[in-house]
């Protein structure tokens, strides 16, 4: 695919800005803004990037009321998503995936022994292309901790979209859950929407437009790609967009590349944090098949997708000390 002149100009421009962006919409169980502060602190320390937050008035007020940290000390921009709860309710996803009185419910694990259900506001993630204040952006999920500077290499590579395709657990093996590898056992590979590098090129625009299209026609694509029904998962929407844009081929190319340091390492929902020391984190890595069985693992200097959000909350202050 030919690259646009505009993209080349953007890459070469010394004035082109770069930064990191986070989306955080609190629900009744998880304070996403608090998590975003931790993740952004890790990005500032290791990547030295300015950070911006996209949130809503309710989430921000809730966070400020608890007075954990001054949010504007961490984020140079706080962008308020004007969409109200009423607007969300009009979105067909929220009525479709309603359980009881709660809309778009997701089941969260906190180790194998505890679960909770809560609302998941991820429907506007594709709007990030229009909302970012930067020419070149890395979008981070708020549960991603950066512990080295490898992701800065993404800014030096001539690929407008970069994201992770492969992941690895704390035990250094590929995910055991099929939906973390493929859309179904015989379907296309999964791309993770956890961390996405993008620029303001027409190619990137096309990717985010297609993501929006897949979201709007999620039922149709569910019937084509045969992934599990239920919650809207942005990883699935991104994977389908990649598949369509790559001409229905699963190939590595110079437009839609993998982020540096693939595979992405993750702590699963059933893993737990044992302790945090001054350099790293000790985990209980849970066995997927034998849930009573854990091994201790130590992680230092590795980027981590920390899926168990309650575990982060239990060790929040110690984790924050890693990044101040």
């Amino acid at each position, binding site marked *: 695919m030919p690259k646009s002149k505009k993209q080349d100009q953007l*890459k070469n421009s010394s004035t082109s800005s770069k930064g990191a962006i986070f989306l955080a919409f609190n629900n009744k169980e998880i304070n996403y803004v608090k998590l975003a502060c931790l993740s952004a602190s890790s990005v500032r320390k290791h990547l030295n990037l300015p950070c911006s937050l996209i949130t809503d008035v309710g989430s921000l007020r809730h966070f400020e009321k608890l007075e954990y940290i001054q949010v504007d000390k961490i984020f140079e921009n706080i962008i308020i998503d004007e969409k109200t709860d009423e607007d969300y309710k009009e979105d067909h996803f929220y009525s479709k995936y309603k359980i009881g009185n709660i809309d778009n419910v997701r089941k969260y694990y906190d180790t194998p022994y505890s679960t909770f259900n809560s609302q998941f506001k991820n429907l506007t993630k594709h709007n990030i292309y229009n909302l970012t204040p930067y020419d070149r952006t890395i979008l981070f999920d708020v549960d991603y901790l950066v512990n*080295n500077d*490898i992701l800065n*290499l993404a800014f*030096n*590579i*001539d690929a407008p979209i970069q994201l992770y395709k492969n992941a*690895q657990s704390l*035990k*250094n093996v590929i995910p055991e859950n099929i939906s973390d590898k493929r859309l179904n056992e015989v379907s296309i590979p999964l791309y993770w929407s956890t961390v996405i590098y993008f620029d303001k090129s027409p190619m990137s625009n096309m990717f985010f437009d297609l993501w929006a299209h897949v979201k709007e026609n999620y039922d149709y694509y569910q019937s084509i790609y045969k992934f599990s029904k239920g919650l809207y998962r942005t990883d699935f929407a991104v994977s389908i967009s990649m598949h369509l844009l790559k001409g229905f081929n699963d190939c*590595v*190319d*110079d437009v839609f*590349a*993998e982020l*540096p*340091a693939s*595979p992405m*390492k993750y702590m699963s929902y059933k893993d737990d944090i*044992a*302790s945090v*020391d001054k*350099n*790293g984190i*000790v985990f209980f*890595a849970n066995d997927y098949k034998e849930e009573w069985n854990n*091994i*201790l*693992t*130590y*992680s*230092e*200097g*590795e980027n981590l997708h920390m899926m168990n959000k309650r575990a982060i909350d239990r060790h929040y202050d110690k984790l924050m000390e890693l990044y101040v």
Partner: protein
Amino acid sequence: MDDKLEKALDFSNYRQTLYNQQQTLKAKVINELLLTYQESIFKATPELIGLIKTIVDFNYPTVIIDDINENPVNIKNPAEFLENLIATYSKAKNSHYIGYAKIKKARSVKKLVNFE
């Protein structure tokens, strides 16, 4: 539990943790071997360093090398590229050596995972 069996199981736990920490270290070092040059990403392997050194020794002005995504890149300054490769390789392998020595010294699960 029988003492011998308990010791064997402790040793088994230790070996499992040791193996996992070694794999973690290897993955970390593989990432540290990455470098970007001319807007492409390469891995500083001994083979690539050897090839570029040969190119430099033979005074070739340029050379085509595949990046890690198998896209061919015209390296316009092989000598400078070689310097970058060697610097990245040395730094990564030094970190590997230090990490390996630390793991080798740890004789219990607690020491392996810094859990004292």
